[in-house]
């Protein structure tokens, strides 16, 4: 049991930094960048927590993680208890500890912000989950007497589907998840790169959910093999969590040239299909010497850092606004900068140029300046006339966002969608316009975050339980 230090000391202490791979080395491999805390480091950081009542941090957490409680157990050096405390509400702690935008959520709310740096809640969550995995700590088995004899179908095994499945399984429901790809996990598996979220960690947390009795059928595309209408017939409730998977393109000339990728294709080839291990794995990928990624969000950062690791001598971000408007997490931008990514800000692509074989050889861009604020409140970028220039490039990766994929929606009679094809669902319950169908995650909100998807899955589980218990 570590000592509990006085508040005055807490304020004096700095946030414990997390060691990470040297940028020069890490651009040559796909291993995880941050190493995670040691037990000593975790305790030292945990000791800073003020144990607020009520806890502001929890209010910022869409999964309602019992933050002060689990942090307190770390100081007790009872990591198993800390793990169980987290697991009460969050089935994916090792994932969330790594990829949640903590600075906007729990850590953004932490009262320590007023005095200095917030408690490193994400790093502590990650530490606890990793420790539990390494020590083989599992959740208690499901209490068989709780069985409800009711069946729920879930479409999609991303964070929304998995979170909903875990909560319903705990409550005693018979849960089946249908997944289109050959591996469960959604974006966690096919989108977020190995160096940020090792796939072995996602697989482990998915296995834990399976151990709770959840059945996951992979290679099962709802809309083709079975419709949502059929699921509604066969199950007591259906939760649609199929994500927003369809890639957007810019609509500029030359976009179908060889060497132009959507970020989803580029990342799927690399992550899900392990193209970074080609020819050990059979899926090829092209990463030329000069690769441009268009966009300024997390997806763009992931794509550009992947390109660098695949051997690009120069990997460049082209973004039409300035650094201040970039939607990516600060940490991601800093990691990219440390790895030598070049940023061409206030720059907009207007044409992809090809050679005689249909391969990309250049990208024509125009410089931009910021004009008056638009409806979103951000200053609108306007092209500077006559500033066009051409960059020599081998690959162009388009990372400007995702749309709703229509396959699920067109097989779901009576489930209303909005004009962009997203399901219309109540924010608090996930209820759709169909009495037996719930929806949540990116397919309701548009591309968002892992933890918001987890939160949506949990809300739907609660609402499904309330509805089915009342019947």
């Amino acid at each position, binding site marked *: 049991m570590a000592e509990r230090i006085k508040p005055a000391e807490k304020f004096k202490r700095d946030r414990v930094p997390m060691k990470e791979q040297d940028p020069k080395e890490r651009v040559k491999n796909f291993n995880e960048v941050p190493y995670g805390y040691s037990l000593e480091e975790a305790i030292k950081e945990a000791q800073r927590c003020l144990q607020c009542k009520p806890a502001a941090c929890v209010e910022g957490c869409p999964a309602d993680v019992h933050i002060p409680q689990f942090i307190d157990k770390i100081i007790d050096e009872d990591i198993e208890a800390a793990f169980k405390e987290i697991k009460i509400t969050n089935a994916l702690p090792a994932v969330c500890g790594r990829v949640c935008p903590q600075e906007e959520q729990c850590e953004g709310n932490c009262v320590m912000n007023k005095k200095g740096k917030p408690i490193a809640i994400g790093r502590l969550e990650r530490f606890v989950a990793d420790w539990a995995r390494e020590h083989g700590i599992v959740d208690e088995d499901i209490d068989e007497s709780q069985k409800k004899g009711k069946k729920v179908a879930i479409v999609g095994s991303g964070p929304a589907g998995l979170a909903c499945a875990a909560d319903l399984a705990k409550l005693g429901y018979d849960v089946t998840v249908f997944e289109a790809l050959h591996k469960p996990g959604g974006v966690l598996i096919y989108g977020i790169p190995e160096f940020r979220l090792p796939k072995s960690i996602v697989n482990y947390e998915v296995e834990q959910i399976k151990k709770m009795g959840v059945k996951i059928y992979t290679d099962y595309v709802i809309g083709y093999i079975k419709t949502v209408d059929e699921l509604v017939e066969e199950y007591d409730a259906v939760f649609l969590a199929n994500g927003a998977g369809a890639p957007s*393109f810019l609509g500029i000339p030359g976009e*179908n040239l*060889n060497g132009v990728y*959507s970020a989803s294709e580029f990342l799927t080839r690399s992550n899900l*299909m392990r193209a970074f291990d080609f*020819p050990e*794995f*059979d899926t090829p990928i092209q990463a030329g010497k000069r690769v441009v990624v268009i966009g300024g969000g997390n997806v763009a950062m992931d794509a550009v850092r992947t390109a660098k690791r695949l051997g690009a001598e120069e990997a460049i971000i082209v973004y039409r606004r300035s650094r201040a408007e970039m939607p990516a997490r600060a940490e991601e931008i800093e990691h990219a900068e440390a790895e030598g990514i070049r940023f061409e800000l206030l720059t907009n692509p207007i044409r992809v140029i090809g050679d005689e074989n*249909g391969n990309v050889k250049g990208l024509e861009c125009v410089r931009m300046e910021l004009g008056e604020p638009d409806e979103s409140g951000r200053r609108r970028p306007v092209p500077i006339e006559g500033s066009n220039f051409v960059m020599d490039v081998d690959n162009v990766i388009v990372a400007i966002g995702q749309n709703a994929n229509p396959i699920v929606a067109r097989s779901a009679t009576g489930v209303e969608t909005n004009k962009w094809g997203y399901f219309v669902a109540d924010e608090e319950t996930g209820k759709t316009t169909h009495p037996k169908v719930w929806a949540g995650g990116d397919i309701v909100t548009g591309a968002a975050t892992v933890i918001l998807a987890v939160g949506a899955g949990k809300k739907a589980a609660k609402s499904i339980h309330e509805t089915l218990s009342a019947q």
Partner: protein
Amino acid sequence: MARILKKEQWSDTIFSMLIEAKDVAKASKAGQFIILIPKEHGERVPLTIADSSKDEGWVQIVFQVVGKSTLELSRMNEGDELYSFVGPLGMPSEVEKFSGKVIMIGGGIGIAPIHPIAKTLKDLGNHVVSIIGARTADLLIMEDKMKEASTELIVATDDGSKGKKGFVNMVLEELLATEADNVDRIWAIGPPIMMKACTESAKKFNKPIIVSLNPIMVDGTGMCGACRVTVGGKTKFACVDGPEFDGALVDFDELMARQRQYKEQEQKALELYKAKEGLA
């Protein structure tokens, strides 16, 4: 799941397999495809559903060995399980009872995917004229099955070793020269260059032609955009908007260029695999 029930070799490079896949067989319609991964390190290989039996719970695939993945698949045996098998994918063919004749053209390995569409059209009571062709007699597949699925069957080979001598598009053009008025719709499936040629012929006679495109795919569910093709000046995803499109609107040159995207890597993978397995 996805066990190889039956394997046949139809030529040097063409194989047929019946795959156990009850749910896929039950749901599949003419014109759709599956994606399989032979073994764990494998890539996702799209193949058309050539036939299926709802009662017996299998799906037939017919494939040509062109690179590492199809070679590896061809070396798997009855009783083996595929690492992954997903389907049916893609939009089913739009079939109906036409008042005039329909012409079905299958070139090379394209005979396999044209078969279920011809069969469905014939079952709907259509007069089905099929033209099937291959480079040489040994490569001609599914002749008996196509005979059964057609009202009339015309065979052509490039070298004249069987049936008419010449390309299927030439046979099409001859047929249209005398019968164009009686023809309502044409389907052509085969290598892009053949579909392009057939489209040219159909255009001359102002006849609608449907082609089935086979761009490189990854997920096959509309998530990655690898399969994008230009149709009527617009970008479409072949896996979810197709694979069948109005041939007259397809940019075949772009399709062909995009298919060559990974030529170097594919060659390297094939050579390494052959060396590792001790194959010539």
